[in-house]
């Protein structure tokens, strides 16, 4: 075998979460009253479009979570030795993007470095912008660059469009076949937006994503699309790698939050009395400690612990991963109070309802009442708060890494990118692309998550029932 799979802690948890989500989807599909609001979400054009964008991010994140270590080429056949560098399937897919490293900064789509250096030209030493090793290396002259970029972009658009049209054709064929209608009326009702699902939005967003993807792939083959950073690494690659960090923070933190919030919130509301008092005191105290302070202290403790036990981690990736996991844990422990308070209030209300009293009249146990009567009726709140919190957590990671108490400095993350770009903003001429790239990606992810969350909230909020 030419590689050995590496399962980092966060990888395991991410795939466990994925499994959980798939199981939940299967469960929901079997229950009409649970799937109805999701069908309502799917009918909203905005939510569907946002979900597609989110899906692209998730797929990248998942591909980036399949880690392995390659076998060293010079290892003896009997006792294989593996590289200390942990790679992912995503790294393999993007190929040269990772390895094409320049000397230092270069602007997006440039063919020269950003700073002048002494270069040997015709035997003489001249101070000029040296050519990049990989970016635009296929070009002979500087004036070929612009036409080449335009050509690549147009080819990318054309290819994306072609694939989009092909997919649309397949969709149309499948739909008309299934509903046994002619193509023309189907096309007409699609164009009118008269389908039962947001067909226009779906097709447009897919086409747009395909074109964008194709253009990026085309350009990335010959250039550094977002430029390179201080050590000459491709910024596009760093930004894409950061997606996984953002997703891990956004999802795994909730995984920590949920059990705490659900168990404590529902218990406080349902049992009242001293249980309620204790839980309320705990979260009031927790809430009154500044969150950043608590996180900073905990991260430093973890950092010290990692450094004290270097023998436990065989790779740098494993070390960074443990710190990421610790950050998720700590953020989860400090952020469960809001949801717990919400669930407490709702449970207080639900426990007085007649169906709970009826269950008590049958002598049904507390555990059963909570699991069958209380929890299913607060679940929509849990769901709404998961999607709403996700974007907040992604942003929190950026802020924490910027402050220096976030993820490991060696880990790719938007927060680290921003932190790195901070000093360069004072440079003249300014190095703007790192910040822009991180901002664009983070903005897209958070906006998509928020739009999706809006759709989910509208569909699940009982007060908005019946409204479009």
């Amino acid at each position, binding site marked *: 075998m030419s590689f050995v799979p590496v399962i980092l802690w966060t990888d395991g948890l991410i795939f466990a979460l994925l499994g959980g989500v798939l199981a939940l989807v299967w469960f929901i599909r079997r229950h009409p009253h649970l799937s109805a609001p999701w069908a309502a979400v799917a009918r909203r054009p905005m939510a569907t479009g946002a979900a597609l964008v989110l899906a692209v991010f998730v797929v990248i994140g998942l591909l980036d979570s399949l880690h392995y270590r390659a076998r060293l080429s010079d290892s003896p056949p009997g006792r294989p030795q593996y590289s200390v560098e942990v790679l992912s399937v995503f790294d393999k897919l993007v190929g040269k993007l990772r390895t094409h490293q320049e000397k230092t900064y270069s602007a997006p789509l440039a063919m020269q470095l950003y700073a002048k250096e002494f270069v040997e030209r015709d035997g003489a030493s001249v101070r000029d912008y040296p050519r990049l090793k990989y970016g635009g290396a296929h070009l002979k002259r500087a004036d070929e660059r612009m036409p080449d970029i335009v050509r690549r972009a147009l080819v990318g658009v054309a290819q994306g469009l072609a694939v989009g049209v092909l997919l649309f054709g397949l969709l149309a064929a499948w739909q008309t076949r299934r509903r046994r209608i002619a193509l023309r009326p189907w096309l007409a009702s699609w164009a009118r937006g008269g389908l039962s699902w947001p067909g226009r939005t779906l097709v447009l967003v897919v086409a747009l994503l395909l074109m964008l993807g194709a253009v990026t792939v085309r350009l990335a083959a010959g250039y550094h699309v977002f430029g390179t950073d201080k050590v000459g690494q491709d910024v596009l690659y760093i930004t894409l790698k950061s997606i996984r960090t953002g997703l891990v923070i956004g999802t795994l933190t909730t995984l920590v939050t949920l059990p705490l919030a659900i168990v404590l919130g529902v218990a406080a509301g349902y049992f009242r009395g001293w249980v309620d008092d204790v839980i309320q005191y705990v979260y009031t105290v927790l809430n009154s400690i500044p969150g950043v302070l608590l996180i900073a202290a905990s991260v430093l403790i973890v950092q010290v612990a990692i450094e004290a036990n270097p023998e436990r981690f065989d790779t740098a990736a494993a070390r960074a991963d443990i710190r990421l996991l610790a950050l998720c844990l700590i953020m989860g422990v400090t952020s469960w109070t809001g949801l717990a308070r919400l669930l407490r209030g709702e449970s207080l209300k639900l426990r007085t309802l007649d169906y709970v009293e*009826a*269950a008590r*009249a*049958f002598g049904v146990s507390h555990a*059963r009442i909570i699991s*069958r009567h209380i929890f299913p*009726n607060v679940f929509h709140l849990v769901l709404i708060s998961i999607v709403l919190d996700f974007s907040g957590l992604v942003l929190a990671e950026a802020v924490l890494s910027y402050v220096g108490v976030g993820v490991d400095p060696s880990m790719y993350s938007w927060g680290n990118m921003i932190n790195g770009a901070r000093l360069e903003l004072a440079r003249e001429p300014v190095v703007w692309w790192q910040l822009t790239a991180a901002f664009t990606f983070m903005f897209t992810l958070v906006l998509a998550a928020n739009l999706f969350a809006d759709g989910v909230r509208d569909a699940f909020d009982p007060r908005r029932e019946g409204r479009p």
Partner: protein
Amino acid sequence: MKPLLRVENLVTRIGVARVVDGVSFHVAAGETYALLGESGCGKSMTALSLMRLLPDGGRIASGTVRLDETDVPALPERDMRRVRGGKMAMVFQEPMLALNPVIKVGDQIGEALALHRGLGGRVARDAARALLDSVGVPDAARRLDTYPFELSGGLRQRMMIAMALAGDPELLIADEPTTALDVTIQAQVLDVLRRLRTERRMGMLLITHDLGVVAENADRVGVMYAGELVEEGARGAFFAAPQHPYSRMLFEALPRPGDAGRLATIPGQVPRLDAALSGCRFTPRCPFAIARCSSESPGWQDLGGQRVRCHLAGMLPMAGVRERVAHAATERASRPLLQVDGLKVHFPIRRGFIQRTVGHVRAVDDVALSIEAGRTLALVGESGCGKTTVGKALLRLIEPTAGSVVLGGETITARNASTLRRQAQMVFQDPFSSLNPRMRVVDALLEGMDALAVGAPATRRDAVARLLRQVGLPDDAGDRYPHAFSGGQRQRIAIARALAVSPRLVICDEPTSALDVSVQAQILNLLKDLQDELGLAYLFITHNLAVVDYLAHDVAVMYLGRIVEQGPAGEVLRAPRHPYTQALVSAVPRIEPQGAPAIIRVAGDQPSPLNPPPGCHFHPRCPHASAVCRQIYPERTDLGGGHWTRCHWVAGQT
């Protein structure tokens, strides 16, 4: 005489639904016009159309509304604001929600006075006090400075009426003004409304579902069904001979005293108004329907003072449609199934940082009851008297403070509570909150059987199917979720759930008060049938005396946590002895012309159980109170035949 309000062909739409469809009527000054009908018939929507206060998406599609000379739908919103509360005012159903909780009532009334009469300062305050006096609020000057939460429901509704009167309206729209109130308070508020109408010569549009309220208050009556007015006439003629089959069936569905037969029920439900409707809208539920009814919408037919929209107007058989099936007379068993003695439920009141107990709310104070198998004991009283607490304490949903409960010869303690749960179950008031919306019907029914291990697990599914048939639900009902059912059907499910563990006693906590009359009749019939079939005993908790009369064998009347009178239903309701029972019985609005002695009105509200009056709890409101009543709680006075009361006045007579 020129009418004050004239409505012609009013059509109101909400989205595609025609919630009010071609309604025409008029109201003269000094007259009360009652709109009658079940929920969802468009009564409130008619009123909101007149006020132009329709919910989002609602609009008046066509028709004219003339108030005096004003064309209401054509007014710009600016002028409409002056008409609202000025020329016409509205009193809403829920006085709790219609008053702003953070503003003193005096200021809320002052707001209306400033807006419509331009009064301010001292003058406004005097005017507000005069208004409160006119609606019969005692100690008016002080009440102006109270917040709504300090007032009882009856007082709040009076405040609402005072606010509505602030602009000297010519037309008062009262939308179910007394539905949320107790009977004795309802009588007081209706008195106020009647008196004000005569004093001020206002026109009044009274919206209600209660035939009794209509009979005592209206001059003319309009019956609405599915957005249409289907019958109209003077009160006397309407109550003597209702002409539309729907009106007839409303009468037949009403439980009446001394009537042991089955109640007539109206099958089906009010049709959805967003569907296309053709022909007479009542056809699917009408027992008299002919072929023409489903194709052609009937026009108005005049029948000497009454108008009716029915193809068969004047041709309906005069006799009632009620089938007279006598229910099996239940034998008095020698031993009671349930025997309760000295039941007390006291809630501690805690104050301060360490939650010291500073007092007790005596919600239930020394209650004794007994019910025999196969019989019904009704527990009657106004809201807040502790009747629901008794029911819950019996099932140990609330832990009783003291007292013994003997069920089927076994004394119930905290340890053998599961015996109790198998033998006694509860049916709740609100069919919407009594079923878990996320649980299928079959799971709801299985829950009790699983928890109490009733029958072998394999046979439970069959038991569920049998139960559903027993309460008259379709076989496929089990696999559906509660939202697929109407209020009446949900109440059937709740009854089936209670019966799932084959109890011998069912505690029914106002099981019909959230339902329409026709559905109430179905549920009452079902309860009676089940009693005949299974020999169930019921503890029927209610405030509705008509239902008690129909269903109960014995009655216990509760006031402030204690039973003040108990005895056979016929005796207690026909010849009540305790002054409170007398007031309660006489306050119920009746359809029959009042040949009975003058109505006894009790003053004031029920005091708080936190601080009950010393001596007899009822003495502050009692017309017969004497010195001894203020000091000593009366002992039991036996009146023979199991009828007893606690009253010094009665004791003095015998």
